[in-house]
């Protein structure tokens, strides 16, 4: 049975799951949920995801939402197939979880409102909060200095190998890099090196093609 992913292929959170499924060579089917017409807030989708967000998955009788939980589930269930995303030991896995959690509390909390103001609002004809953008850029700079330092002595966020810690950052990073504030990453040598390496992966290239980027 093929995994059904409910979401929009251009949206960051569904992309997180798609990237994991591609890295793990797991077959899937996308059921398009149209964010532009707020399909995610309609009763039919609320049955799958009660907070009215994407993605949600159905795998036979099994249902799950929250993109990072879905990615961890498939990375665990198919640990013997495709890329190993969860580290080689319990201790290594916990470091992978550590940097994946940093993505939620330190990275996404700043990048999400940045992308909303720089990309989404203009597209919807709404005004960008320029003062907020400046404030967020300063805060993101401080956070990216810490990332840059980590990547000075580690090839990937959690060590020598590409893991969930790197993967989980990529969709939102992809959006950030397509804005005119991408120098915030490019000017940091280790972050830039890391971004070039992770985006050269075949699964990422496939995802970008699917999303039409």
């Amino acid at each position: 049975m093929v995994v059904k992913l409910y979401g929009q292929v251009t949206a960051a959170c569904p992309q997180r799951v798609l990237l994991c499924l591609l890295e793990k060579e797991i077959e899937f089917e996308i059921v398009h949920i149209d964010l532009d017409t707020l399909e995610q807030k309609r009763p039919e989708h609320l049955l799958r995801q009660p907070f009215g967000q994407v993605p949600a998955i159905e795998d036979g009788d099994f249902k799950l939402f929250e993109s990072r939980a879905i990615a961890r589930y498939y990375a665990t269930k198919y640990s013997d197939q495709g890329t190993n995303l969860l580290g080689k030991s319990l201790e290594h896995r916990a470091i992978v979880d550590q940097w994946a959690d940093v993505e939620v509390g330190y990275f996404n909390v700043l990048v999400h409102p940045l992308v909303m103001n720089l990309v989404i609002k203009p597209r919807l004809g709404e005004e960008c909060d320029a003062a907020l953008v400046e404030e967020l850029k300063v805060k993101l700079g401080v956070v990216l200095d810490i990332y840059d330092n980590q990547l000075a002595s580690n090839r990937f966020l959690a060590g020598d190998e590409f893991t969930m810690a790197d993967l989980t950052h990529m969709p939102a990073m992809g959006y950030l890099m397509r804005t005119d504030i991408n120098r915030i990453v490019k000017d940091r040598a280790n972050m830039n090196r890391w971004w070039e390496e992770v985006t050269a992966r075949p699964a990422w290239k496939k995802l970008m093609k699917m999303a039409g980027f």
Partner: protein
Amino acid sequence: MVLKVYGPHFASPKRALVTLIEKGVAFETVPVDLMKGEHKQPAYLALQPFGTVPAVVDGDYKIFESRAVMRYVAEKYRSQGPDLLGKTVEERGQVEQWLDVEATTFHPPLLNLTLHIMFASVMGFPSDEKLIKESEEKLSAVLDVYEAHLSKSKYLAGDFVSLADLAHLPFTDYLVGPIGKAYMIKDRKHVSAWWNDISSRPAWKETLEKYSFPA
């Protein structure tokens, strides 16, 4: 060498502490004086580069991020104490789902309430009334979803208590206490019953008894 948890008097470290106590794991705590800026000193930044609590040191091994610590402890000590990760990969998936809901959806508005109601004056920034009102509305909408879910499920991930439930303890304790918004929990029948259940667990009572912020 015994596992050490840094910053026990604060809320996020209590996610790690309650998990350790539930699993019956020996540990020590190391106070971190946030008022004196100890968390911004090089010695602490070497353990947690973002300068926040908790940090955990287990022999040579260092780990931060409270929910990552919870997962590490629950996995490492799987065979002792309650199984906080569920019994199957699918049950674990449900645990991870609600642990992520806590982190991405429940925690952010509650953190705003915590900072602006409890800590604004102490930390020296003006309390933002508009943000407090918006955050309460957001949290209220989230709790409505929890109410519907908990009317069909005893605990968040199913009929067993898990990391997902425990992760909610420290900041919800602030919500019903010093934040002064206990009604948000008490006015919702199933959320209230769930809260009474998880907050009366011996491990949580012990956490509060030993590590509450000194008055």
